[in-house]
């Protein structure tokens, strides 16, 4: 993943962008990277869960399993995110 490329090599040089534009791009790139990460891990997990013995096609039940697995993976991701965030909050309050 070669994002964060040369576009923002130090402030100098031609075509200075304002802070808002740069941040916009930073946010988009992080969001894309996050989506790619999710996609990759989800594919990995759902392939393992749903495709036992690879047949000559992706059959109907496998496709259903994949759809369900994707939904559950995203549920799990959200649950984990909420839990981790709450824990961070608690740890911060303790300090």
């Amino acid at each position: 993943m070669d994002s964060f490329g040369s576009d923002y090599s130090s402030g100098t040089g031609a075509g200075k962008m304002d802070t808002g534009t740069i941040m916009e791009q930073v946010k988009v790139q992080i969001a894309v990277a996050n989506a790619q990460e999710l996609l990759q891990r989800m594919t990995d997990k759902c392939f393992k869960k749903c495709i036992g013995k690879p047949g000559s096609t992706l059959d109907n039940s496998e496709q259903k399993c994949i759809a369900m697995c994707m939904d559950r993976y995203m549920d799990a991701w959200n649950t984990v995110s909420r839990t981790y965030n709450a824990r961070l909050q608690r740890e911060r309050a303790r300090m």
Partner: protein
Amino acid sequence: MADFSSFDMSSASSTENADTSELQRLIAVEQQKAQFQAQVHNFTDACWDKCMDKPSTKLDSRTETCLVNCVERFIDTTLTITNRFSQMVQKGTH
């Protein structure tokens, strides 16, 4: 940007530097968010394997509880190992 502490960096030309440090601050915030998300990916990966049976039409409460416990215990494990390891290093054992 309620931070004009850049005044004590006297030699620097003001607006440009204020801009740069503001940008650095904003990027640091985004970096932290990205780090959080990366950690969530790791936790989900590990806890999915521990908690998920065959995916069904809903995330049932048993699985949800398992996920919550899994994340909490993973963090506890990290803290325990970090503490014990630093003790080991301090005592110079091993």
